[in-house]
């Protein structure tokens, strides 16, 4: 597919804020929009709010607002979400970020933009094109891709491409309460909201926490600030920064640095580039 690019190369900056104060603070900055979690239905976001609160914050901004509904949805969730989706359809939001295909099916009767984000499954341009043909308006690609993959996917699809360029990397999501279970087995109680798994092999700590009766594990921060220029030159439509697990002051500085980077000023170096330059393997031996 030969996709036509706009003459002016640009990437928009979307931010997942930490909380309402952070939202208000960042709203004053030169960013293009926010991703907000829907309370009880979002994962890997920290500012999750209900429909009434969404109505209120929309009044506070003229930036793009995406609502992330990206948890796996059980039958009961679908039933509860239907009236919420109807309410969302009446609001001035830019779109809904979905993971569960059931959500796609119930949203299609409303005039709402849908952004495909099946977490680790957005890995090639043909699948992007498949969702494009279904009327989807964008794709948040997997964080396990290389920089060249992002560029190649963008070149071969009409679907607007969102790249998660800064934030803790989601590695694991289980419907089990693994911390609660462990403490119970040890005749103890879970006291903290967040714990760390220590891996001896690489001498690394991984954040593990429970939310909504599920368990999540995060890898280190990915920070692709030095890749902003090349992503922008290759017309990646949106860059996403996630404030999950951050202190507000530090995150605001990060956001400012990305605003600068989009203006051509790289003012700091990054430590972890995730898979941007690292290829994964899946066949250990060739027969």
């Amino acid at each position, binding site marked *: 597919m030969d996709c036509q690019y706009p003459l002016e190369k640009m990437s928009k900056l979307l931010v997942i804020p930490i909380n309402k104060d952070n939202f208000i603070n960042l709203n004053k900055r030169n960013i293009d929009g926010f991703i907000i979690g829907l309370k009880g239905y979002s994962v890997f976001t920290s500012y999750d709010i209900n429909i009434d609160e969404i109505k209120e914050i929309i009044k506070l901004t003229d930036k793009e607002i995406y609502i992330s509904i990206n948890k*796996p*949805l*059980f*039958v*009961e*969730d*679908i039933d509860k979400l239907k009236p919420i989706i109807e309410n969302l359809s009446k609001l001035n939001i830019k779109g809904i970020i979905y993971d*569960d*295909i*059931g*959500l*796609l*099916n*119930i949203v299609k009767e409303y005039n709402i933009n849908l952004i495909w984000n*099946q*977490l*680790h*499954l957005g*890995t*090639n*341009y*043909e*699948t992007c094109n*498949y969702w494009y043909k279904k009327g989807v308006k964008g794709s948040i690609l997997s964080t*396990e*891709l290389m920089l060249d*993959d992002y560029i190649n996917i963008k070149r071969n699809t009409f679907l607007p491409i969102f790249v998660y360029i800064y934030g803790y*990397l989601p*590695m*694991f*999501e*289980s*419907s*089990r*309460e*693994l911390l*609660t*279970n*462990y403490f119970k*087995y*040890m005749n103890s109680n879970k*006291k*903290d909201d*967040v*714990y*760390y*798994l*220590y*891996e*001896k092999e690489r001498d690394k*700590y991984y954040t593990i926490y429970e939310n909504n009766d599920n368990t999540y*594990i995060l890898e280190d921060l990915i920070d692709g600030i030095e890749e902003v220029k090349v992503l922008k030159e290759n017309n990646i439509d949106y860059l996403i920064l996630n404030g999950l697990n951050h202190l507000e002051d530090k995150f605001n500085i990060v956001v400012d640095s990305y605003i600068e980077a989009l203006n051509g000023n790289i003012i700091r170096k990054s430590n972890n580039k995730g*898979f941007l330059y*690292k290829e*994964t*393997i*899946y*066949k*250990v031996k060739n*027969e």
Partner: protein
Amino acid sequence: MNKKKPELLAPAGDLEKVKWAILYGADAVYLGGREYSLRANAKNLSIEEIKEASEYVHSYNKKIYVTVNIIFHNEDLINLKEYLIELNNAKVDAVIISDPIIIDIIKELKLDIEIHLSTQQNTLNHEAFKFWESEGISRIVLARETSKEDMIRIKKESSIELETFIHGAMCVAYSGRCVLSNYLTNRDSNRGGCSQICRWNFELFDKFKNKLEFKEEFSMAVKDLSMVKHIKELIDIGVSSFKIEGRMRSVYYIATVLNIYRKIIDDYFEGKSDENIDEEEYELYRCANREAIPQYFKSKPGVEGQYYLGRNEQSNKDFLAIVLDYDGNEIKLEQRNYFKVGDIVTIFGPKTKRFDLKIEYIKEDETFIDMANHPLQVIKIKCDKKVYKNDIMRVKF
């Protein structure tokens, strides 16, 4: 009984296991090719072997499904169309997919092949079923987390076929939503490289990074799935296909698991009550050497669903021999594990109801010996009861 008999679907890691699965009562087998399968490091089958398996399976009026269920990266797309054409030419009945691009390719090429959606797509609700049905998917493998209640609702609201796992290992994470393997070992879990990090132990630290001093390290490992006591409920719900996990498992495992579930399904449709269900449950436990529970079927598993203590998954040497022949007086056997004169063993097979037998003597080349202690050793033992080729002899327990 008006209910439709469900399909019993067995894993087959190679051609030999295809044959054992069919022999032991599978209605269909699923297997992976050398490309695009989520068990990238299993032996898997070449396209020629898939053709041979297809012919074999169809000669018994059974079905064959091939997993093409990786999540594709750009570079994996190159030969995908050609591969699907080859599978179509091999007359496989269905492909099991995760990535919907295959739907478009099969439609574009007008291939005569059904499309089953893998559990890797994590399908948990009726609305998702409706979407995939409209896309031409004929069957969906339910997410592992689906409850009985949700299965009933999905079945009520969708006419698409439901497939569910009934036995075998579980992912602790939602399928497709774990990339621990990618980050910790650089092996892509969604392209078949999963290095099973969930079975590692980890030290756990609190929010101040102080180590928690418990007697066992933190583990995510979960027990296996066993639906042996809930098969009738699954039939009543209208689940179309009962899937056994384990493409990398042994012939003994496949034969044992199939033999038990085949009997339970058939007995139900013949109106027989199953009085030996506890024995069967124990037999299933022994052949995998892992504890198993019904997982999410009745309620979400809690601490009882986890493994914390060190487990012994070494072979327990229960599998003693395969029957090669029977002459009305003696069984000719091929040895798999040690046994000796005086042992009491159990024999079972597709046409042989499980029975116990005392080893009165062992003969090798017409010479009486005390024990069978060489793998693949061909020996004879005394038996008055009729047995058949490919019956299995195991330890009595």
